[in-house]
């Protein structure tokens, strides 16, 4: 995968959560993810059509996402319910959109799909292509979340 794709997703994640949810996040060391098992309780997945084609996912721990959405909407949430799942979809939409706009300025033309949201402990995330998946862990005061990106054409 083109490593140039990593930074736009990283900075989009930091920017969207800061602006929309008033949440400061700290990025950890990216790692290669080799299985489909999620590292959290709820995920949003967005297909990306290029070329190259790919996908992005956001996976939050319950503690982390209820705090983020509570802050974003000014209401208190405690469980992963429909409101939380909808918010994960919108966050996925905004983060992928912001990264896509950034990549657009570098000459890449991408379209993104309407996000799909999956929840439950140990749920699986299936990326759109078979290329390696890069996972970027993030920390917030309330808990952790992971952004995964996977793009075909590894030699680019």
């Amino acid at each position, binding site marked *: 995968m083109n490593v140039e794709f990593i930074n736009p997703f990283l900075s989009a994640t930091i*920017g*969207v959560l800061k602006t929309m949810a008033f949440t400061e996040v700290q990025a950890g060391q990216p790692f290669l993810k080799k299985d489909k098992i999620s590292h959290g309780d709820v995920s949003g997945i967005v297909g990306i059509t290029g070329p190259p084609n790919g996908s992005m996912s956001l996976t939050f721990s319950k503690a982390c996402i209820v705090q983020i959405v509570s802050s974003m*909407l000014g209401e208190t949430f405690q469980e992963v319910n429909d409101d939380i799942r909808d918010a994960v*979809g*919108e966050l996925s939409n*905004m983060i992928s*959109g912001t990264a896509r*706009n950034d990549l657009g*300025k570098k000459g890449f033309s991408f379209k993104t799909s*309407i996000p799909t949201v999956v929840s439950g402990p140990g749920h699986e995330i299936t990326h759109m292509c078979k290329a390696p998946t890069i996972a970027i862990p993030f920390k917030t005061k309330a808990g952790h979340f992971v952004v995964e990106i996977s793009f075909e054409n590894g030699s680019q």
Partner: protein
Amino acid sequence: MKPDINMNMKVLVVDDFATMRKIVRNILKQIGFTNIVEADDGANALSLIKEDKIDFVVTDWNMPNMTGLELLKNIRAQENGKNLPVLMVTAEGLAENVVDAVKAGVDNYIVKPFTAETIQAKIEQIFAKRQANA
């Protein structure tokens, strides 16, 4: 100078995500708007515009079935929509998207993520321009 905005006007917020409708509604309330209705897609938005007296539309771009751009074109094709103020709030931030929206008759445009202050400033720009041209 800040425009004179009627805070009792009926504002329609269109987005397929309830979260974004709630965020926009909260900001509009914070600004002072009191009469806010919602639609979760373009078809419902058009029905509300046809049936009801809508004074101002805030719409998303990326929606299933009918995009915000298609909605905008449909609004402008309706007799009671030709002059309706429309603000687009979207993740589509590339210059060509802005050009498409302007060509279709959008009044103003905000790229997500955004702050409450940005929405307020964009709304004030819309009504200031309309009042200057009145």
